[in-house]
């Protein structure tokens, strides 16, 4: 790729200054999203996925702060240098966000048609009448039956799946270059999830919209993303194409996530587990942050924080096994398992 990527995070640090210490929730994250690309972000609860998303839109609230030295380049601008007015323009026109719970993005006292029309009027400079027609058009586009009638209904009158489609319709009205979708289908049922993901895939095909898809469902990632970023303890720990990641995961944490996932049609043996839990962000361990849960760790992992090693074309892994693969031959029970599954 010769053209610069649409979005590029460079050494993003976002910290929360809490009573119990500084939570280093996002601790040096770099990755990029190309035009028309769908990139997945996966990782356990608390590893910093949502804070990364909020940072891109500069929506982190006190006691949180994006640390100096972080760069967020989007369409050639460093978003960190923009003032709030310019940032609002980006949020309203170029980057849309879809959250897990659609109610948070909808206003309960306006009809969904009014809410979509409002976005069209402000961002598309349309007249009231044009905007209203646009709202119905968008509801049709996202597959809401009887869109004329639904446009006149309030959010509480719609099901969860329909509300999420309304939020996506609002996001699309501004024809953004990038949609950040944070667990957009987690609260929905599989059949509705299939509808929403189909809709988003269709958009990238037809409009060339880029999508940053945050999810904990590896099946969703496999089906929808061309590239995957695995986060652990505030860092990117592995990045690869979806095919490479599912076929040749390198970082033991990624292996663990893949092993723990039950597969429909898969063999019904015992599920693999990752003992222990993510350490608190106020006290990331020195060395490799996954060390206590890793079956291959050795003394170097305790001493030395692993950098992102390049282990193949477009494939990076934050694990010393890249340099000393022989340690894979001697797996041992992880420290967390030795202390009992409860040790956290």
């Amino acid at each position, binding site marked *: 790729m010769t053209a610069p990527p649409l979005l590029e995070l460079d050494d993003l640090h976002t910290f929360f200054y809490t009573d119990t210490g500084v939570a280093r929730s996002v601790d040096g994250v770099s990755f990029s999203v190309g035009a028309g690309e*769908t990139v997945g972000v996966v990782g*356990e*609860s608390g590893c910093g996925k949502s804070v990364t998303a909020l940072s891109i839109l500069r929506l982190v609230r006190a006691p949180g702060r994006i640390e100096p030295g972080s760069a967020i380049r989007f369409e050639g601008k460093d978003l960190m240098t923009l003032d709030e007015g310019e940032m609002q323009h980006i949020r309203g026109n170029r980057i849309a966000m879809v959250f897990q719970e659609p109610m948070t993005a909808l206003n309960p006292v306006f009809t969904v048609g009014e809410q979509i029309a409002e976005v069209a009027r402000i961002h598309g400079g349309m007249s009231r009448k044009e905007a209203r027609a646009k709202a119905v058009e968008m509801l049709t586009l996202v597959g809401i*039956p009887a869109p004329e009638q639904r446009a006149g209904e309030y959010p509480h009158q719609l*099901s*969860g*799946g*329909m509300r999420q489609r309304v939020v996506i319709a609002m996001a699309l009205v501004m024809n953004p270059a990038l949609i950040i979708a944070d667990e957009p289908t987690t609260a*929905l*049922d*599989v*059949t*509705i*999830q*299939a*509808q929403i*993901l*189909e809709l988003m895939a269709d958009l*990238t*095909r037809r409009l060339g919209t880029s999508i940053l898809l945050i999810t*904990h*469902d*590896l*099946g*969703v*990632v*496999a*089906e929808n*993303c*061309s590239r995957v970023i695995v986060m652990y303890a505030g860092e990117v720990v592995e990045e690869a*194409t*979806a*095919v490479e*990641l*599912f*076929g040749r995961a390198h970082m033991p944490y990624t292996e*663990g*996530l893949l*092993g*723990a*996932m*039950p*597969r*429909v*049609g*898969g*063999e*019904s043996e*015992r*599920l*693999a*587990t*990752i*003992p222990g*839990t993510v350490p608190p962000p106020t006290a990331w361990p020195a060395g490799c942050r996954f060390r206590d849960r890793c079956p291959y760790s050795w003394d170097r992992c305790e001493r030395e924080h692993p950098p992102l090693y390049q282990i193949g074309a477009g494939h990076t892994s934050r694990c010393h096994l890249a340099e000393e693969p022989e340690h894979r031959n001697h797996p041992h029970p992880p420290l967390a398992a030795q202390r*009992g*599954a*409860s*040790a*956290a």
Partner: protein
Amino acid sequence: MSRQTTIAAGAMTEGGAEPILSVRDLTKHFPIKKGIFGRVGGAVRAVDGVSFDVAAGETLAVVGESGCGKSTTGRAILRLIEPTSGSVRFNGQDVLALGAGELRALRRQLQIVFQDPFSSLNPRMSIGAIVREGLTIHGLAEGAAADARVKQLLEEVGLRPEYASRYPHEFSGGQRQRVGIARALSVEPKFIVCDEPVSALDVSVQAQVVNLLQDLQRDRGLSYLFIAHDLSIVEHIADRVAVMYLGHIVELAPVQAMYSRPIMPYTQALLSAVPAPEPGVKRERILLAGDVPSPANPPSGCVFHPRCQHPARDAACAAIVPPLEEKAPGHWAACIKQPPSVVSWEAQRAAGGTNPPDFYLPVSALHRSADGAPRAHAFTPPR
């Protein structure tokens, strides 16, 4: 129209084993209050005539979309909510006829683990006290013996015994779910209703809890009613699966039969919607039209008819309530267009039917071939 019941008692466990739990025509309607005077105007038919059996040592999974009545079914069985009608027999006892004292005794054998590990534990009680409560209520152990038992239970679910003095907020979701399981186990039940015990958890923690449940079943011969919406977990843990839609069981079959030859069109759509965890593999989806209708105003006839993709669907589907009937040995499904059916083609025609029944099984719904091998997926490179 009342639902035809083609179920003989005891006929619904695999291989006809004597059931430990037998549920017949279970119904729960929640009245809808309208206006300031609380007049009752209609009802939410949350569970509408559900029948099934669970054998000792068996896991029956209950799946279906949000709001289809899974939790209500689980709670009604334990009488945490009073069913509107129907019968529930546990170990030969008529559960719905029990008085308060007998009900308490029953709950020693029949326990529940709740959907939400964050709200189901009392935040003001230490986890030791939470686990100990059941021991005290049922007079199973006191004093030092109870302390020892609590420690043992915590160890059994993989928690450190010294955690007994800590409070729920100090634990992660997976750990709290373990506390819920330890609480259920404290009274040595025979049967546990597990209401989405792993839905709120990360895959890594989910695997820990699923393995734990399976170990406990093996060691203690427990039976589970396992409520879930994740079909891959269900395939992993269940012996048989019941699919619910709008308060009805629409299909009930051994897991292998369900995943290799789903009969009811809704089950087919549900299975086709599960994402394949292999990159580049994009299964053909049966995309259902619209959303689940409201259980306050369910469609006539087959409750699935407004969204059904069966090519033979016709006016008869909107008129006739399909009975849950045994279409193949041990494989029950409710669809008049999937032969064989006790609702004859003549009867369907009389009800306005225009398309004769014709067996329909889209490839996209299949996850296993008939011999049980995982279905091979054609590999297409990702975009």
